[in-house]
Structure formats: C-alpha cells, structure tokens
C-alpha cells in the first residue's frame, strides 16, 4: 500500500514537471517562422507581404495581441486606417493595458483627426482592467464570499460553535461582496465596449433613414468607432463617440469582436 502511494506521488511529480516544462510551448512564446517572416517583411517595408502573412496566421487560429498589433501597424503604414484601428482594438481586447498598442492607436487618431474615446469619470476605475481580468476578479470574489458562508456554516454545525471566528468570516464575506460589486461594474462597462464597430470607408455618410438615397446627417471618418443600436435591412443605426446617431450601410462596418 505504501509502495502504491509512493509511486502515485512520483507519477504526480513527473506529470507536474512535464506540464511546467511544456507551459512555454503551450503559450506559444517563441516567435514562429511565419511570424518572423512577417516581421522581416514589415522591416523591409513590404507591408502587403507582411499583412498577408499576419492575416494567414490569424486565419490559422494563431490569435495573439502581438499579431494583431503588428498587423495594425502594417495597415497603418499602408494607409488603411479602418483596418489599422480594427486590429489595434482587437489587440487591446487581448491585452487591455498594452502601452505600445495604446500609443500607436493614439498616434493614428491624432494624425487622422479621429476623436479619442471619452471615458466618463465614473467609468475610469472600471477601465483599469480588461473584461477578462474583471471576470476573473468577479469569479474569485464570488467564490471567496460563498466559501466564507459555507465555512462558517460548517464550523457552527460540525465544529465547536463557541470557538467559531464569526468576525473573520463576516469580514471575508463583506470584502468579497464589495470586490464582487466592483468587478460587476467593470464587467458591465467592458462588455459595452465589445459591440463597438469600426467605420471602414472615408467620408461614410451618416443618413437620416436607412435608404441609399436618404439625406445625410453627418460624415464619418474611416476608423471612427461607433456603437450599433438597431438594424433595418442592410443598414445599421449607430451612435458615434460624439453622440451623433444615424444610419450607415452594414457593409461599411466591421465589428471589433467578430461574430463567430
């Protein structure tokens, strides 16, 4: 019996070591040859080639913030502003705090006269982290709160209830609930960013009604971020960061988060 336990322990240890050793491989840390080739094409200012290889990597399912970011740079330098904004936004989905992505997006917006998204003051704490981070914080705080309730109940029922550290459990639950509320707010704010769409054509008219011959309300710039509100046939009713609303052809928009 002891032998069996000892063997199981050894097996577990070996498995853990194997997992640790393979972690970098699974994370895809080292640059692949295609990724390197795309980077070399970019360095040689062959942006079309670089874009083609980066796009192939994404189509093959190798999605990473680095690929989106580099692709965004390539599109920007090629002059395709809408696509550049789209790829930067997608890079930010994976790495919300990536300084290089934020910096290049700011440069692009400044150079093209695109407005920076305005974050209301009350939302500022919630944009400190991305959606995934908030989601994990929410999960951890919910688990902590629920464990607090469970452990106290178990202690009182099955342990010496006179010695139960009630204050500790109450504190644990209270803090967890506060963090959970914060995480809920963060998730809500970040989720609203998910349905943003990027305008793909320069001077795309914002129309008063969803028909090709309808009058224009305003003109949108390529790379503008808009929020879809409703659909009618091949048109989408959108709101841009300036608060303007109108109809725009569906074909002129690309969602930051792809449908599939």
């Amino acid at each position, binding site marked *: 019996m002891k032998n069996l336990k000892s063997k199981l322990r050894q097996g577990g240890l070996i498995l853990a070591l194997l997992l640790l050793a393979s972690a970098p491989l699974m994370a895809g840390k080292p640059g692949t040859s295609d990724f390197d080739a795309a980077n070399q094409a970019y360095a040689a200012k062959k942006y079309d080639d670089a874009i083609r290889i980066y796009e192939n990597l994404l189509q093959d399912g190798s*999605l*990473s913030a680095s690929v989106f970011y580099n692709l965004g740079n390539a599109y920007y330098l090629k002059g395709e502003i809408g696509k550049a904004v789209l790829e930067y936004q997608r890079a930010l989905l994976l790495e919300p705090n990536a300084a290089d992505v934020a910096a290049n997006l700011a*440069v692009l917006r400044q150079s093209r006269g695109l407005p920076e998204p305005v974050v209301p003051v009350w939302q500022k704490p919630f944009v400190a982290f991305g959606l995934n981070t908030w989601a994990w914080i929410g999960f951890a705080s919910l*688990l902590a709160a629920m464990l607090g309730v469970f452990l106290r109940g178990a202690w009182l029922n099955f342990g010496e209830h006179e010695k139960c550290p009630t204050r500790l459990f109450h504190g644990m639950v209270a803090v967890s609930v506060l963090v959970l509320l914060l995480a809920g707010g963060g998730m809500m704010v970040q989720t609203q960013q998910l349905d943003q769409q990027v305008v793909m054509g320069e001077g795309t008219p914002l129309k008063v009604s969803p028909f090709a011959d309808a009058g224009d309300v305003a003109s949108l710039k390529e790379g503008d971020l808009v929020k879809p509100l409703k659909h009618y046939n091949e048109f989408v009713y959108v709101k841009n960061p300036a608060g303007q609303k109108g109809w725009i052809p569906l074909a002129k928009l690309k969602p930051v988060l792809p449908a599939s």
Partner: protein
Amino acid sequence: MKRNLFKTLTVMLLGLAPLAALAADANVQANLSPDAISLGQSAVLKLVINGSRSANPALPQVDGLEFENAGQSSQFSWVNGSMSSNVTLIYRVVPTKEGSFTIPPISCQVDGKNLQTQPLTLKVLKDNSAASPAQAGGTGSSAPSSATVPADIEKNKSIFGRITGVPDKMYVGQVVPVTISFYINRNSNLQINQVGMPSIKNDSFASSTLKPNQIRQSEQVVDGVPYIVVSAAVSLTAIKEGQFDLNAQWPLSIYVVESDSGQDGDNNDPFNDPFFRGFFRRRVEKSVTVNSRNHTVGVLALPEEGRPTSFAGAIGRFSAKLSADPLQVHVGDPLTMKLEIQGSGNFDRISAPAFADSKGWKVYPASNHFEPSDSTGIEGAKTFTQALIPQDGQLNSLPALEFSYFDPQAVQYVTLHPELPRVAILPAEQDKSLAQQTPVHPAPENNGPVLAPIRLEEGALRANLLPVTGRAWYWVANSGSLLIGLAGFFLLRRYRKQVLNTDYQQNKRMGRNIVHSLQALDSALANEDSAAFAEAASRALRERLAGLWKVRAESITTADVRARLGANGEPIVALFETADAVTYAGRRFSRDEMFDLRQRITEQLRQLEAKA
C-alpha cells in the same frame, strides 16, 4: 423456415392493415353544383365516398326533381405507406318545375355501414338569371345539356379531348379556371406512353403555364364506359373583346396495341390466359394531338360607367387588410406597411395601390409577394410591403389608401378602404446638432508617424477573441461557487433551527433516551430480568412525559400523571405502580407478563407521542 413464415405473415398483415383502416375511416360527402339553375337546365350532384371503392346509395324521391346516373370515377393512391381511396358517383339533377328544393340526406351502404350525407338545397328559377355571364365566368361550368352524358363526351371515339369550365361570356382581363382533359376508353387498344403539355388554341386568350406535376390521372365511368382521364387545371384570361371560338389541344404519345387473333390459344401468350395476353401483344407507338370541341366565348369590355380612379385592372373578388410594424415610430425612423389583398381573380394585374395623400411621409417603392392557394393561381393572397418614414411629428395616422376592382359576378366596380392601423408617431430621437456635419479634421499625414516598434515575440496564443464571459465553463464555475454558498446558507439555517433551539435539543435528547430505554426493556425481557425491565419501562414513560410537559423526567410522579392526564393517565399510573412493585416490593414478572407489559408500554408511548 419458421422465421421466414413469420416474416411472410407479418408482411401480409402489414399490407392488409391499411385496407382495414380504409373501412374504418369511410365517410360520404355530397355536393351540388350549381345550387341555382334555370328551368330547362340541370345541376350535377356528386357523392364522394372516401375510404371505400364501392357504395350503394339510395337516392331520395324529391317532388319536382329527377336524378339521372351520369357515371362514376374512382381514385386509389398509396403515398408514403398511407393508402387512400375514393369513389365519386355523379348524377344529373333535372328539375321539372321551378322553386326551391331540399334534397334530404342520402343514405349510402359503405362496407356494411349506413352513412348519410348532409341535406342540399337547389333553387330553380323561372328564367335564365341563374346563369349570368358573370357567374359562368367566375366559378364553374354550365350544366350539361339535356343528353344523359355531356355533349362533348364522344362515346364513339377511343380517345377524345375536352375543355370544361369555359364560360359563355367573360370580360377582357378576367381570369377563369378551366380544365383541359383527354379521355381514353379503357376497353380500346390504346395505352398512354407520354403526355405533353396542353394548350389553348386561340390568340385572343392567354393561359397559365403548366408544370408536369399539375397533370392528374384518374378513372371515370361515363354511361357504363370506363375511361382513363388525364386532366390539367389552367387559368384562362381573355385578352381582347369579341366573339371567339376556343378549343384545347393536347399532344401525346400513345401505344396502339395490335389486336390478337381472337383465339384463346394465341401463340404469343405462353400462359394461355387472357390476363397475361396484353403483355405479349405487339404495340406501336404513335404521336397524336387530341383536340377538344370548340366553345364559343363572348368577351366583353369592362364598363366605363362607375369606374373609380383607383381602378388599375383588378377583376375578381377581393378583400384587403392593412398592417404596420412597428406601431410606434419616431420621426425619421422607418416603418413597414403591409397590404394583403386576398381573394380570387387576376392577381397578376394587381399592382401596389397608390396613396391618395402622402404629405408628411417619405414613401419608398413597394415590393410584392404572391402566395397562391390553388394550382391555377386564381385564388390566393398578394402582399405589398412598403417602407414609409414620417417626416413630421404632427402626423397622427398612416396615409390612407384605396384599392378598386371589378366584380364580374355583381357586374360592378368595388372600392375597398382598408382600415388603417393605429400608429403612434413620436418626435425625432436626434437633436438638432445631428444635422450639422462633423468638423473637418486636418488632412492625414502621408508619412512620418512615429510608431512604437512591432513586437518580435508572438506571445500567448488564443483560439478566438471571445472573452471568458462568453464561455459556458466560466458561468458553470460561477454556478459552482453559488452552490457552495447555497450549501453554506443551508448549514447556517440548520444551525439556527436545530443547534440553537433548546426545545429541539430537548426533544432530540428525549427521543434518544426513549430508544435506549426500549432497548434496555427488550434486553431485560430477553434475560427475564424483572428489576431491569421495570426500571427501563418506568424510564421510557417518564422520558416521554418529560418531553411532553417540558419538565425533568426524574421529577414526574404518579400524582403528576393523575393531575395532568386525569382518567386518561390511569393506564400509565398502573404501569408505574407495577414497576414500583417490582423495584421496591420484590415482585417478579413472568415472561408472559413482560410481553404484555411491553405491549402496553409501547401503546402508551404511541398515544403520548400522538398528543405531542
């Protein structure tokens, strides 16, 4: 061998099952067409017996009407394993005087059951008003002439064509359903090989395009002669006014079977059986065109008098319904209006009705969709879908529209004003600043932006961009946390309800003590130990009473029992005294006494528990 026999029987039973079902579902229906005729004309009475291939109807005696047998047809089909069969018996109803007649229910003997039809009414008019041109053109055919069989049934021919439903008069643009058919005498030496598409031979009429699946084949017995009847229903439209002769042509390929020598011992028939003889005869293929008889049709122009301005050529009978979606709309937002025109007539001539006054609305062109409800496309519903945008917040309803058509039966124009759905028009959602153009930004730089460098490491790879909140396992994990919390709440509730409740604890303790006492009682009984038995019995009863009265068990005396329970407590007092007699007076129980006492104690405990 046995298995094969079983399979064969199963297949036979399965094959017979639908036949049994047929008999079970048999029903009979009667219809009379037309239901109003003039004296001198006749109507057609059809008895349709569904679910059987034979019937024996008993025609009623109606004063003023005579019934003449005009033949029968039967159909038999097997579709997706489901069998259906019907037989239609056709009678001519000839009036001998004018008036309104009721044909009472007709009894039919079908597969041993007596089924009855519904009563029918026939109106016989003095003059010819029942068969106006409009009626003839609208729905059906004229009644056959005075002969026993219709005049265009050419009994002397092995094959002949017919066209039925052609009215004597119709209007330009009017569409009527007609049936083109050809008959082949089953007793002739002709067999159908291939059937082409029939056509109407007159350029003054247009007919609908037929598809091969619209051609039907049936059997019909006319005046004792069995025929194979191939027919197709088409719509006929008059193009110009005048008097025209009309007939139908049907190209087809047939086999002409050579006649045999007339002897049973034909050399071609190896079975020497008339049933198989046809298989071994020579057949010659021939292409023929079967013509129907000519019909003379008078085509009238639509009357000018009373023609509404909104009339656009629709002829028939229609109803119109209007709907809108959404029913609440802001100025500048589109809504979809649907106009559904239902009925029978020339739907291909119906175009989107125009609005009389659409001021304050931006109106976009309408699209349309026609959904026929019969094979000829004469009956159905046409829906016009149109986008409208309110331009003015003062509007309070949709723009009105009207639809006009000519009713050939009533010989008059009809104008419909469909009821407008109630639509709430709200002020525009956008503020005035929307009308302003976005400010013009400086021209983009062509080159020279200072960008942060690209990344040289590919980084962590992901299969897609979906956040964790879009994945099912994330919510399963959260649900797991909630389940843990739920278990915690359950434990806290249990703690408050049980651990903190002294009554609960006392009852629990009492229950345990009673169980222990009863165990001691049984143990003393087994050992025939009277002292232990008496002590255990006394303890069990006291514990039960203590739980009931919320007092300590040791403090309960016989006086307490008498005081609290009165006469009901006497059995318990007796038990206490018996136990005391053993404990203090040295009395001994026999085994039978112990059994008896055990039973009485159990009974008393049960009664006390019921009181608790």
